[in-house]
């Protein structure tokens, strides 16, 4: 079942967003490990949009959360905003050969999402950034 939330993309709304997503995905199987991965991805993506997509003026974000159907425990979440076009997948992964001094303190969030999510896709359509991730139960990921 899919549920929708439309909310202003500002950091004060993070708790509301996480609660909505967790609640919406609670239908069907939903393990604590999967729940934690969903929380991490939702936090990183929402904060990224709050910080970058609407740097000029505030705006809304639309979040669609699909708890999956039947025996599938695959959870799907889409984040849609009308901010500046930004493809988070275009960022380079962190350079693990850098020294402590050279390592930048930014860019970690999207890397975490890429590490945790099973699939991640981005498109820019009709003036909207659309980022969709899918997360399965980590216990089943080897299947």
């Amino acid at each position, binding site marked *: 079942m899919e549920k929708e939330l439309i909310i202003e993309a500002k*950091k004060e709304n*993070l*708790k509301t967003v996480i609660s909505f997503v967790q609640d919406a995905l609670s239908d069907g199987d939903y393990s604590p490990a999967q729940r*934690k991965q969903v*929380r*991490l991805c939702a*936090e*990183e993506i929402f*904060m990224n949009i709050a910080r970058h997509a609407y740097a000029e003026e505030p705006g809304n974000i639309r979040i669609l959360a699909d708890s999956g159907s039947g025996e599938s425990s695959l959870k799907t979440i889409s984040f849609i905003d009308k901010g500046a076009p930004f493809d988070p997948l275009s960022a380079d992964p*962190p350079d*693990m050969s850098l020294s*402590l*001094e050279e*390592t930048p*303190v*930014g860019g*970690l*969030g999207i*890397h*975490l999402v890429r*590490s*945790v999510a099973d699939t991640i896709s981005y498109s820019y359509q009709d003036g909207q950034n659309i980022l969709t991730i899918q997360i399965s139960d980590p216990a089943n990921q080897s299947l």
Partner: protein
Amino acid sequence: MKFEKSEDGSELLVTIEGDLDSDNAPVLAKRLEEELLGVTSLIFDLKDLEYVSSAGLRVFLIMQKQMKSRGTMEIRNANEDVLEIFKVTGFVRLLNLV
């Protein structure tokens, strides 16, 4: 979060419980900034830390950078989930995990 300083002020033990996310990481960063004067040994005990996002990682990285020129920093008792986050971000190489 709990902050314990040794009598001479050189050692600071910070115990973090529960979640370290975009909401409370700035609070931790600010408090550390206030407490860090004179500290040459900074220790984080993460025994009861259950969740960390990139906002928390940033605080550890900034602290590690600062402590490099003035002493040592240790991260103790990170659980499996938190360790996994340190691994995928390459932080196991940058931080002193014990």
